[in-house]
């Protein structure tokens, strides 16, 4: 689940602004909330990570298990994001360019993974292909291991980030309508030409936006991955799982050092997100 996209609208009306004292109190309260819930946790991460100095920090993130965790996370992202982006394009094309019965139901089904607890998301794959299930043991006999290994992590992440791209593209393509595609059709374009030359350029920012959200969640997913991973260091540990292990071993500095990598990525995501919202504002 992710919060609805922020669409910048009209600036504040100039008339009717609240009295200055009211403004100051409300802005103050907001900053207080942000201090407690945003600024303090953020600064805590860096203060803890660098507690034992710059060199120790580098040591923590260069340590082989940490590097393996980063590699596994990158691998997961590089598989999950393209697959879900491709699905998002297909689903958005079917839903926005055609009328068919059951469209509303299909849209609701797309949202399902948002409503499911991450732990349940992991559990369902254990129930489907875990070694104690018929299908899982059959796969095991043929040398395929899914749960407690990389494919399991990838599949669980696919589920959790499933709707991100589709959710961005559907409202965008609905608003753009079918006119341009129909115009291209009357000018003799074939299906893939229409898609590549007309539709794709029109939705590229929305697509990128969805992919960024999808990546952020893929990198950070904890609950679902935690169920299917088996927590084998150097093999099935993603970055968030590695953070957890270090923390539960009371290795706080190392845990926060690795966590600081995730904070960097989150901050980059936020910067990209607001930059792209700015882009939306410009094109709208």
């Amino acid at each position, binding site marked *: 689940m992710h919060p609805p996209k922020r669409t910048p609208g009209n600036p504040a009306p100039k008339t009717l602004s609240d009295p200055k004292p009211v403004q100051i109190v409300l802005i103050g309260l*907001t900053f207080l909330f942000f201090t407690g819930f945003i600024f303090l946790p953020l600064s805590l991460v860096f203060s803890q990570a660098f507690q034992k100095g710059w060199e120790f920090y580098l040591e923590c993130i260069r340590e082989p298990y940490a590097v393996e965790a980063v590699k596994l996370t990158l691998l997961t992202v590089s598989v999950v994001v393209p697959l879900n982006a491709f699905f998002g394009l297909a689903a958005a094309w*079917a839903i926005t360019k055609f009328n068919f019965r059951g469209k509303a139901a299909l849209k609701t089904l797309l949202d399902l993974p948002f409503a499911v607890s991450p732990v349940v998301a992991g559990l369902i794959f254990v129930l489907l292909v875990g070694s104690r299930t018929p299908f899982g043991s059959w796969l095991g006999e043929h040398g395929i291991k899914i749960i407690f290994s990389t494919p399991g992590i990838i599949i669980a992440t696919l589920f959790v980030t499933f709707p991100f791209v589709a959710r961005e593209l559907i409202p965008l393509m609905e608003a753009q309508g079918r006119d341009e595609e129909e115009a291209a*059709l009357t000018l003799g374009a074939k299906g893939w030409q229409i898609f590549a030359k007309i539709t794709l350029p029109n939705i590229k920012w929305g697509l990128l936006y969805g992919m960024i959200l999808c990546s952020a969640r893929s990198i950070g997913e*904890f609950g679902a991955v935690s169920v299917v991973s088996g927590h084998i260091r150097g093999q099935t540990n993603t970055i968030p*799982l590695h953070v957890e292990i270090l923390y539960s071993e009371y290795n706080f500095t190392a845990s926060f050092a690795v966590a600081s990598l995730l904070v960097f990525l989150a901050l980059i995501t*936020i910067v990209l997100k607001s930059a792209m919202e700015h882009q939306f504002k410009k094109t709208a």
Partner: protein
Amino acid sequence: MAFFQRKRRNILPGFGLSMGYTVFYLSAIVIVPLSMVFINTIPMGWEPFFSAVTTPRVLASYRVSFSTALFAAVFDAVAGLLTAWVLVRYRFPGKQFLDALVDLPFALPTAVAGICFATLYSPVGWLGKSLTSWGLTIINTPTGIIIALIFIGFPFVVRTIQPVLEELEPEIEEAAHCLGATRLQTFSKILLPHLFPALLTGATLAFARGIGEYGSVIFIAGNLPMKTEIAPLMIMSKLDQFDYNGASAVALVLLLISFSMLLLLNAVQEWQQKEYR
């Protein structure tokens, strides 16, 4: 199959292909795996199922999850409304910075949020130290869970209210003022009812997310049975004991709750559109 069939032929190409792939992928990644919960639970029979999901410890975990998520959602509704109001209506230095940071709880991996709050509120942490000296404990209590869930749910409320507030025509308020309403009256009689559906949607999203949340909670909760054990953690511990049936029974209850939240949300949004469009 009458479902998913085109109502009338549309002339654009690619319906069969895109629809086919959508249905296939949706089934493979979402529908079939999710149905495993039902497939695993149904052969249990009613009695064992019922007793599995109503043991005192499981019941307590529902209670913890439900009440903490509810508290957090209510708090988020207030804090989110405040933040959205300040961000839309006022000009002040650092506004854009604040606006961007609203998304941090979404972008930050939940495990990182979890260890942050656990460390902040630990008896030796930045906040925990002074709180402990006043005799207040946050860590290993439901209050700790609520704090983590407030963080997680916050962007949902802000981002649902913000666009509604932005699109609100100033004329509405001006009209109210011309008719002699005070600022407070305008807010409570005009603005709040107008924002209410969005507020409800945002709070419901935060609540739904809170019920299923795992990563940010387990570090600060301490996971004491009957006290601070959340429902997702019950699934986790049943899985650790290879009690697949028990795990899927609890998961089924959680799923049903989530689905009804989804339906409720759709209903709220439909009502919102009917009322205000």
